């Protein structure tokens, strides 16, 4: 590690982002698993509810959103826990970079590794569900705006459960209720488009949620990490 005598917000962000990104790049198994899970679960739904194309088209956006939500959630425990276990989280907290910077960098890297692949893959799944081309684009746009919020909210819950008993299930209990508004507006955007309405109110609300989350949640994550390291 280079000496970081003078810490800075962008410096910490860039350092944490490139570190986490490089780690994931050299060990892509986790990202591949998240994507595989997403595709697999989305493909199970038609087997369960039947191959009626009209029904699939109607439930498609919602199903794809729920799958994206679960896939994003599955990767949450890994966000801070390995760094917490081997003590590097403590070293980062001691570094001269402000905490908000590198925490945001880690969250951004998490999104690049989970939310972005899901967004990019979603049109393919949407084709499986027979969605129209414009609905498909709106769905991808909603995922592009909504999945960063999932990463932000998830980061807070992941940091809160560091070192807790019963990690995975506990994390589900904390994170999934908080994801509800994102799911509603995200799936709502595509459904509005499919039924001939404008998706822009839903997308605007998602974007507003993203702005609020990006402003408030990194600070909450920092507080949660401080609580965990105490």
């Amino acid at each position: 590690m280079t000496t970081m005598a003078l810490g800075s917000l962008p410096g910490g962000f860039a350092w944490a982002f490139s570190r986490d990104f490089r780690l994931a790049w050299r060990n892509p198994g986790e990202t591949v698993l998240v994507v595989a899970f997403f595709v697999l679960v989305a493909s199970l739904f038609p087997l369960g509810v039947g191959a009626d194309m009209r029904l699939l088209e109607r439930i498609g956006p919602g199903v794809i959103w729920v799958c994206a939500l679960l896939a994003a959630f599955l990767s949450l425990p890994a966000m801070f826990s390995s760094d917490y276990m081997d003590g590097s989280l403590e070293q980062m907290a001691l570094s001269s970079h402000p905490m908000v910077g590198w925490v945001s960098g880690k969250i951004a890297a998490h999104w690049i590794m989970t939310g972005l692949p899901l967004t990019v893959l979603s049109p393919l799944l949407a084709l499986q569900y027979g969605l129209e081309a414009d609905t498909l684009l709106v769905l991808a746009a909603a995922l592009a705006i909504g999945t960063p919020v999932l990463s932000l909210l998830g980061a807070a819950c992941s940091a809160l459960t560091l070192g807790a008993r019963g990690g995975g299930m506990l994390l589900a209990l904390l994170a999934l209720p908080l994801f509800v508004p994102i799911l509603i507006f995200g799936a709502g955007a595509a459904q509005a488009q499919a039924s001939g309405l404008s998706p822009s109110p839903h997308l605007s609300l998602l974007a507003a949620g993203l702005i609020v989350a990006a402003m408030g949640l990194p600070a909450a994550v920092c507080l949660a990490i401080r609580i965990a390291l105490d």
Partner: protein
Amino acid sequence: MNWFYFSSPSTFYRLAGWLSPWFFALAAILTAVGLYYGFVVAPTDAQQGEVYRVIFIHVPAAWMSMFIYFVMAAYSAASLTFNTRLGAMMARALAPTGALFTFVALWTGAFWGRPTWGTYWAWDARMTSELVLLFLYFGFIALANAFEDPRRGDRAAALLALIGLVNLPIIYFSVHWWNTLHQGSTVKLTGTSMHVAMLTGMLLMAFAFWMYSIGAALTRVRSIILERERRARWARSL
């Protein structure tokens, strides 16, 4: 007078022990009067018949479920900012009562919905947000008890309560926009369209539940204090 006299667990333990029977007694009296109003004085509803009398449990329970969450979040904020132990203990003590009232509101709502709407459950805005609220309570309780070190659980759960508090209105408005079947608010600050006896019964029951919540929280906080302070000299000499 020292305002922080009762912020120490040992002094608050005695105060809570002295206060809680009074609150329980008040709750019992108010419940008796409220139920009398609800079942005897209040007239039968013109449209819903006798079924509407669930309101005397349902609405106060729903009010309390939300109100207790706010109080819990306030105690959590106090415990995080001033690093007080008692605030966190009060938040912990309130959570099960809040979850109980949330459950009661959902349960009675289901039995009200069956005869009037024809269904136990509908994906209506208020019901859905009440369900999410129940999960928030469960999450709080689970997180508070998930750590070896109780102080760690206190602080993590406090932060979660605050995140949930910010999220709660967002969740409410999102589901409200998504779907609404539930009737609008009848009781508003600017006046109400309800019969006076019905309103009186409902308010009496709301106060009864409120007093019960205080009594239950004080009783529960006493056990939490004893558990935490079991090695302290004052607790051992009890």
